[in-house]
């Protein structure tokens, strides 16, 4: 159970039950769909970009607790950030969940997102934690095709 609690931290469970920014964004000027074909997770990320900065961000879809909480907390942490800042946070987040973060300073700037550090002990769940982020990247880059974790 100890390991499980590392993965399913209360914050994660809470976000998965009551996801933030869970809506269609009327003002969105960027949008992308992401799938995890193995488990059927499916999210749409809506983005309102004002020049270089993320004015608003929201999401909809279905998935496991990890993927939903990750999407929810991503929207919270990226609102108001520039594209470069968002890319940097994603880089740090990715390193953390794949177990590649080598020091505390690598995680500086992740803030509450560090609750996902337990994912690195569950390699099969890395795709769940990063689905929303990959989808966001596709939305920013304006890719038309749905992105897939496979």
């Amino acid at each position, binding site marked *: *159970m100890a390991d*499980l609690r590392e993965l399913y931290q209360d914050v994660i*469970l809470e976000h998965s039950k009551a996801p933030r920014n869970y809506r269609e964004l009327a003002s969105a000027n960027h949008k992308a769909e992401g799938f995890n074909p193995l*488990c*059927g997770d*499916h999210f749409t990320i809506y983005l309102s970009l004002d020049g270089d900065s993320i004015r608003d961000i929201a999401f909809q879809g279905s998935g*496991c*607790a*990890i993927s939903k909480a990750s999407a929810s907390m991503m929207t919270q942490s990226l609102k108001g950030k520039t594209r470069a800042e968002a890319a940097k946070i994603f880089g740090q987040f990715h390193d953390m969940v794949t177990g590649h973060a080598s020091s505390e300073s690598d995680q500086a700037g992740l803030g509450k997102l560090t609750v996902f550090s337990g994912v690195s002990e569950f390699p099969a*769940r890395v795709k769940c934690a990063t689905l929303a982020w990959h989808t966001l990247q596709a939305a920013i880059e304006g890719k038309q095709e749905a992105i897939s974790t496979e």
Partner: protein
Amino acid sequence: MSTATKKKLAQARPAQARPVRLHFDVEKIREDFPILRQKIRGKPLVYLDNAATSQKPQVVINAITRFYERDNANIHRGVHFLSEHATEEHEAARADVQQFLNATHSKEILFVRGATEAVNLVAQTFGRAHVGSGDEVLITGMEHHSNIVPWQLLCEEKGARLRVAPISDQGELLLDEFSALLGPRTRIAAITHVSNALGTVNPVRRMIELAHERNVPVLVDGAQAVPHIKVDVQALDCDFYAFSGHKVYGPTGIGVLYGKCALLEAMPPYQSGGDMISSVTFEKTIFNKLPYKFEAGTPNISGAIGLGAAIRYLNGLGIDNVAAHEHELLYHAAAAVSAVPGVRLVGTAKDKAGVLSFVMEDVHPHDVGTILDQEGIAIRTGHHCSQPVMQRFNIPATARASFALYNTREEVDALVSGIRKVREVFA
């Protein structure tokens, strides 16, 4: 094969002579499966992902090892001792499959990579020859992707139409609808014997009868059926029957397509190359006789031999005994799992085999799978390569426990307490 060789082979096959057990001693049987002895995350392995692939008994592992240690040579071509011996072993495995399915001739048994390749073979040969523009291919609403996509591709290529017989809320085929969809343009029906996502056993015999009344040939996908049900292709009167070796205690990479002799004779070849020819000149090639016409290239020799060993092992236990044991497990599991608050079974057909699919209120199946894995319990979560089934029930995925002859009531109980733990974590 010479009479002397047949005799020798018969002597080398003790499994056939094993008496049918009156009591199904599952603890004794578990000793035959070395993989089950291990612990996962400090807990005894509870392997309930048998619909994905089954574990292998020692006799199968030994048969493969022995082939490479003692018998390895290419088949159907050597004049030397080893090649002849390997050929005999390979063809003896074909005879094992023939008896297993009760086919009339061993030449009706084609070795392929698995059920997927078997369906593709029929779609690409029989299908391309008989399905034309405006024609129809009939499948059911509970097919695995491997019995959907090959037909979809064929229909796209030919301008034909894929028709789908719907299923009920319990996951049972609507037989009247199936019957009504068998029309004058239906060129083939491809139906699953047992649903991998729901566990439903289809009334295939009746379905085949209905199809034959309209002169429609039928392919049966038996991947989930052969481990649980005695299959008799003559009694079913199916035109094609496909299954995978690895789901029935054999190795991966080997499977079987049964086809009625007359149909196979008339079909064009699938892949071409060595072994499937009688003579080749640059002007013309004469194809080999059945079954070799459909077996181009060096086949999976050790795989076929391993499958033969698996079939003899299953015969030794008695498929009826296995079926009775699994039936009891499945119904015990269905009752116990559905009694957990917030759990709903998906697929509640009257006649089921091997599979228990379920969803939990407010918990995604993937999270169920991770938590059970921490308890050493292996299940499958996801859409099980049956996305249309998930769409039918309006769910993204299910958690699926699937049973084999070596599973026990204690393992079912472990599953149930694991599911209760899921509730605790998500409380």
